[in-house]
C-alpha cells in the first residue's frame, strides 16, 4: 500500500495538482511522525502503516498550511472523521483538498476529492460495532463512581495538568486562533495551573468539544503527564449521540450542539 500511496502522492506533486502532501515519515525509535512533502524527491521518505497514528487533520486549519492552497493529505480513519467534522464546520474548502486513504482491498489507495466523496466514504467505513478499549474500561470505572467521587477523580487528575495546552494544539477541532482561555479582558480562566484554573480550563474544553469531538484521542496521546482526557470527551460524545438520538453519521455531519438553536426545541428554557 505504501507503494500505491507514494505513487499517488508523486502523481499529484508532479502534475502540480497540489503544492504539498501532508503525510508521515519515519520518526525516532520505531515511531512515525507527521511530515510535509513538497518535492517529488521528498516522497522517498514517506511511510504509511499502522504506526501512523497522528491525526494529520490538525494541520488543515493552520494559516501557514492553508496558504499553500491546494494540498493532499494522507488520512487514517481518525483523520477522515475529523475532516468530515471540519467540513461540516466550514473550515475546509473541498476544491483545495485531495484525501488519500487506504481502500478495503490490499494495497489499494483511494483518492477523495469532493465533500460528497469524503462523506460517503467515511459513512461506509464507520464500524457498526467497536471493540471496547482501555478508555472504555476507564469510563466504566468512572461511571460506577458517585457524583462526589467522580468530581474528586477529575480534580485529582486535573491537578496534575501543567497547562501546556498540548491537548488543545493536537486537536484538529481546536482551531480557534484565539482561545477563550487566553482572553485577558475579561479573563475567564485563571492562567495559573492551580486546581481551580485547571478545572475551569478542562470544563470549558469539554463543553466546547461537545458535539464536535470525533473521539480521535489526539489530546490524550499528546498529554505529557498522561491525563486520560479521552475518557471525558468520549462520554460527552456518547451522551450527545444518545440524548439527541444521532447516528454516527448524523453526529459527524451535524451542527455543533452548543451553538445550534431550534425554535421548536422541546426544552422550554431555551425558547
Amino acid at each position, binding site marked *: 500500500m505504501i507503494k500505491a500511496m507514494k505513487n499517488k502522492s508523486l502523481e499529484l506533486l508532479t502534475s502540480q495538482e497540489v503544492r504539498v502532501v501532508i503525510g508521515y515519515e519515519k520518526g525516532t525509535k520505531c515511531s512515525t511522525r507527521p511530515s510535509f512533502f513538497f518535492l517529488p524527491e521528498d516522497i522517498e521518505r514517506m511511510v504509511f502503516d499502522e504506526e501512523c497514528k497522528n491525526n494529520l487533520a490538525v494541520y488543515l486549519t493552520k494559516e501557514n498550511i492553508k496558504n499553500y492552497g491546494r494540498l493532499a493529505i494522507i488520512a487514517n480513519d481518525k483523520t477522515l472523521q475529523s475532516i468530515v467534522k471540519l467540513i461540516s464546520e466550514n473550515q475546509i474548502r473541498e476544491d483545495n483538498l485531495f484525501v488519500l486513504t487506504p481502500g478495503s482491498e490490499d494495497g489499494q489507495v483511494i483518492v477523495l476529492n469532493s465533500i460528497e466523496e469524503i462523506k460517503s466514504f467515511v459513512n461506509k467505513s464507520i464500524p457498526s460495532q467497536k471493540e471496547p478499549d482501555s478508555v472504555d474500561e476507564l469510563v466504566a470505572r468512572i461511571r460506577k463512581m458517585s457524583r462526589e467521587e467522580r468530581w474528586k477523580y477529575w480534580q485529582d487528575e486535573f491537578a496534575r495538568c501543567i497547562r501546556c*495546552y498540548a491537548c488543545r494544539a493536537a486537536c484538529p477541532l481546536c482551531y480557534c486562533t484565539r482561545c477563550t482561555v487566553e482572553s485577558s479582558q475579561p479573563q475567564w480562566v485563571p492562567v*495559573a495551573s492551580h486546581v481551580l484554573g485547571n478545572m475551569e480550563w478542562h470544563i470549558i474544553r469539554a463543553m466546547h468539544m461537545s458535539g464536535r469531538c470525533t473521539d480521535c484521542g489526539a489530546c490524550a496521546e499528546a498529554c505529557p503527564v498522561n491525563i486520560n482526557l479521552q475518557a471525558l470527551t468520549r462520554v460527552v460524545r456518547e451522551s450527545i449521540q444518545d440524548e439527541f438520538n444521532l447516528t454516527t453519521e448524523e453526529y459527524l455531519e451535524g451542527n455543533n450542539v452548543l451553538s445550534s438553536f431550534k425554535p421548536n426545541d422541546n426544552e422550554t428554557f431555551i425558547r
Partner: protein
Amino acid sequence: MPTVETYKISPVSLEKLFYQLLKEDRKIYAPVRRNDQVVFDLVTRYEEICTDFIQTAASPKNLIFPRYENLFSYKKGKDGVEIQQFNPDSIPEIVIWGLRPCDAAGFKVLKSLFNWDYKDEIFNTRLNKTTIIGFSCNQCDEYCFCTSVGGNPGNTTGSDLLITKAGEAGYLVEAVTEKGKGVIERSDSLFESSDNIRKEEFLADVPVMFTPDLLKEKLEKVFESEIWQQQSIRCLGCGACTYICPICACFDIQDEAHGKKGTRIRCWDSCGFSLFTQHASGHNPRMNQAQRWRQRVMHKYVYMPERIHEIGCTGCGRCSRACPVDMNILDHLKSILKS
C-alpha cells in the same frame, strides 16, 4: 570550588541514609511510577523509589521553580494598599533524591538565570533549602545527548551528593558541596572509604555528536535560514517541550484579583505559544512558529551562553520524548550543523 570527597556506601546503608534524611524532617522527592510514567513525587518509603528508568517524564524543576507561585498578595484599604510579601521562611527543607546528572546540572543553569541581573529571593531560598542527591546514569537512550552540551552521565555539577552504582556490592558517593559533606557528616557511620572505585566503568556510554562551541558558531550563521521553517512546519505550538525541560524558565506575571484584594502570581510560560511576546499593540515580533522555534533553539545554544555563560540545554532529551509530533531536538541540531 571545594574539592570533591569520595566514599563508598552499601545498598543497606543507602537505604538507611534515606530514612536518616526523612528523620531530619526533610521532605524527600524521588522518581516513582505514577500513571504509566516515572515522575518526581513525595516519597516516604524507600522501596517506592524507581531506579530503572532513563529519564523522568518531566524534570524536577517545579520543586524549585513551581508551575505557579504567589509572589505577594495585596489589599486595598482606606489608607492605601497593604502588601503582604511572600514569606521565604515558609519554604520547607527538601531533598531531591535520584535525579539524573543532567537535571542536577540544570539547577546550576537555573541559578545563573535567576541571578542574572535581579537576584530572585524566592528561587534562591528554595534552592538553598534543597539538598540535591544525584544518581549517575548507567543507561541512556537515543534521545540523550548530555555529552554534546558539556555534561556527562557521571557529571557532578549541580549535585550536593552524586551517587554512582558500582556493581552489586555498593555505590560510589561523591560529596560535591558543603551541603553534601554535611549529609555525610551527619550519618558518617554509613560511609566507608571509596577504595579507588573507577567510576567511569559504571557509566552509560553517551556518544558525543558535536561541541557546544561548534553549534553556537553554526547557529550564529543561520538566523535567516529556511531551515527554521522546514523544521517547525510540523510543530503544533504547544508548551509541552518547554514545560518538561529542566531549563526553560520563561514565566508570565498574573494578578488574580477578587474585589479589593488579590495575589500576584508567577506562572510558567512558553515560547511555543502564539501569544508569547505579543505586545499590547497586538504586534508580535515572532509572528509565526518558525520564528518561535528559532527563538527556542537560539536562546538555548546562543543567547544563554553569551549572557550567563551557561548552555540552556543539558541534553536530557525530554522535549523530544514528550513532543506529540516527534520534534527531535537532537535530529534538528544535527541537521542544522549539516546545513
